[in-house]
């Protein structure tokens, strides 16, 4: 089984994200060991693997939160390895977190407005009221993720699934070309999960966004991914279509061993 992704022919400008030989250790823990893959525009790539496989660590290296020990991250042909998260974001990478990260002292709308203001480069304005800015755009994004009715609520009191949706709206605010979603449906009911990922797939296709997501629910993975890569103890052990991966003996061993085929958090 080759761990290196094959870049398909036909992608006009090449993949949006190319990852080569990424590795990271924490002391003695080899969290990620030489991972390579690529994601194309408008496509959904699922990164799956048991807890502790290194998925979040991978995400953290992609958006600059962690500096890799080794390897290279290339966004639309430009190397972004080791750049700061805020710089990576400005280059068009949106991200949601496994442990949701929102601003609790702000309303749902203000969370999105904040991202929009930052995207427009307007955070240094010390005077004009922020609440009045980008209201329509924020509401449009919230409508997209189904949070329009809750726009005035405080982020601190939302249900977990709703927070995930707010994060998606925030992550879309800079019109990203790459979207990183770390367990976007954790804490949601099964029906909600399917709906959210269907929506994500639609947005990705419409806006030509490349999406990399991690997910424990295999139904979601098999329905909504164009390709699946499997991580186990820091190594890529499979790469292919959902069907191929499902039949892969290594993958079955890992998943039967851990028993986490669906519904994990």
């Amino acid at each position, binding site marked *: 089984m080759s761990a290196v992704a094959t870049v398909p022919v036909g992608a006009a400008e090449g993949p949006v994200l190319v990852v080569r030989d990424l590795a990271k250790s924490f002391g003695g823990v080899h969290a990620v060991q030489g991972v390579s893959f690529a994601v194309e525009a408008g496509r959904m790539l699922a990164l799956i693997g048991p807890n502790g496989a290194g998925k979040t660590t991978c995400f953290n290296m992609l*958006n600059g*939160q962690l500096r890799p020990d080794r390897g290279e991250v290339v966004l639309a042909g430009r190397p972004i390895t080791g750049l*700061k*998260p*805020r710089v990576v*974001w*400005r280059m068009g990478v949106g*991200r949601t*977190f496994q*442990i*949701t*990260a*929102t*601003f*609790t*002292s*702000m*309303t749902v709308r*203000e969370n999105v*407005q*904040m*991202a929009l*203001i*930052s*995207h427009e480069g*307007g*955070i*240094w*304005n*010390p*005077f*004009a*009221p*922020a*609440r009045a*800015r980008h209201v329509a755009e924020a509401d449009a994004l919230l409508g997209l993720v189904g949070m329009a009715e809750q726009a005035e609520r*405080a982020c*601190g*009191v*939302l*249900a*977990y699934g709703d*927070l995930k949706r707010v994060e998606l709206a*925030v992550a879309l*605010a*800079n019109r990203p070309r790459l979207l990183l979603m770390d367990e976007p449906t954790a*804490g949601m009911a099964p029906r909600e999960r399917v709906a959210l990922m269907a929506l994500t797939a639609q947005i990705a296709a419409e806006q030509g966004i490349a999406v990399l997501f991690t997910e424990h629910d295999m139904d979601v993975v098999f329905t909504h991914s164009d390709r699946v890569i499997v991580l186990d103890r820091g190594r890529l052990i499979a790469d292919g279509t959902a069907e191929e991966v499902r039949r892969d003996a290594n993958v079955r061993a890992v998943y039967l061993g851990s028993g986490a085929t669906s519904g994990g958090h």
Partner: protein
Amino acid sequence: MFDLILTQILNGLASASSLFLVASGLSIIFGVTRIVNFAHGSLYMLGAYLAFTLVNLFGPASALGFWGGVVLAAVLVALVGLVMEVTVLRRIYQAPELFQLLATFGIVLMIQDIALASWGAEDKLGPRAPGFKSFVILFGNRFPTYELLLIVIGPAVLALLWFLFQKTRWGTVVRAATQDREMVGALGVNQRLLFTSVFAFGAGLAGLGGALQLPREAVTLHMDLSTISEVFVVVVVGGLGSVAGAYLAAVLIGVLHAFGILIFPKITLVLVFLVMAVVLVIKPYGLMGKRPVGHVRGPAAAEPLLTPADRATKLAGLAVLLLLVAAPLVTPDHLLLTLTELVIFALFAASLHFMMGPGGMASFGHAAYFGLGAYGAALAVKWLGAPMEPALVFAPFLAGIAGLVFGWFCVRLSGVYLAMLTLAFAQIAWATAFQWVDLTGGDNGILGVWPSSWAVPKTVFYYLALAVCAACVLALRFTVFAPLGYALRAARDNPLRAEAIGIDVMRVQWVAFTVAAFAAGIAGGLFAFFKGSVFPTYMAIPRSVDALLMVLLGGVQTVSGPIVGAFAYAGLSEQLMKLTMYWRFVLGLSIVLLVVLFPRGLVGGFLALRERHGAAGSGAAGPRLAVEGVR
């Protein structure tokens, strides 16, 4: 010259020993309990006072009398520490850092008045140690033998501590607890007993440090704050939680002081500042300190929603402003003076609130910028012969520039590290004003800072202060609700998310720090002309704590809080001062009680109440543990 250098090194080593004792005690306590004990300088002072009394009681002439007194003083201070832990600290281990610092500061105030009542306001000169009264000739200079003894005591205690931590069961448990607190529970250790014993031990070290100073310097009521700020510098440089780091830093600072006096006698502390700055740039968590893994915010989980004032609040604000405008028509002159002061303090409190509330950066040294504003105005008058108007404009720039410089370092840290560093900077500013007599007049201050003739009448000056302060408070308020204020809150609520949407967290906080310093400088400039003079006490630690209390009293989470708090606090403390001579004790006790009764703060307590009565379903806000990426 070479001789002189060696002598100064010895001097530095001698003064390092006591500093090391106090700093290591603070560090050990922090390692296990995660509390930075503000009252550690007070324990040091108690050690010195108790030693003074006991040594004189036992007879200072005999070795037994002297050393018996010193050791007993240390033991008594350990007992005081034990009482402190059992009555106060044990109850606040879960409270937010800011409240822990405040509670221990309350104890500082209480001990100050206890010392005043027991030993009086006069400095006490201790006896010299029997057997160590003479000099030896070293490198051609006379060198007191007691100093040599101190030089030996530092490393000796370091070695003893090492032995204790490596070779005894108690020490092993303490080390384990310092590395991993959860593990201690698993080891089957009585946690309460461990915490209490560690606190008493650390207190005893501070007491010993104070007692050993007895033959060296007079015992005064100012020892507590000057020691604690020096100790903060030592632990910031050495690394909080590291005993060896504390020794290294104590020696570094001690030697630096000794040389500073030689080369740069006016502003030795500037040298200390420079060294601290260099260390912090290279190693933000100190020479031997480790970066805290996953800085966890206090349990006051999610910051509550901040909304712009509703109609009622706006009307109330307008009403207060109108009342203030109308006040001179009805109030007598002396009340007008009080009002002027209140208005100035409201701006001072609002400026601290700006960085502390939306910014989440609690400063224990905000008076530095207030004081620098006052000195800015006074220096412009004294040295440039400037009239009031340009002097008032100059004032905030001095404060703002200091905020720019100090803030650059402060925003690199967070939590207790930030609090300690702000306090250390404030102390440096204070000491500069105090020591640089040629420029600032030292303790005598600068007199004759009078307003221009048009502003001399009390009513006119009141309106001037009101206009400037109201405008500044409103501007700060506007900023809180402007994009910059939002970005600041974003950085506080979730730095990870803020960076992930393109916000430069450190830069936003740096700007906020500077703005807060600038605004405090405006208040300080007005205050200088209001009083007609400036003194180093304008930037002393108690004034910083005044501002903190104003903000906390009014509530950190609301924007109008500091204004309400300033008025409430100033009114209360004035009454208190009239009521009793020991107002510090009463104030300290109230702070301690407040924190113990409402460990989550007043607003936190209120929110907890509301939560209990509110819907249970809305509590699922996910895991609270926010791991901040601190660089």
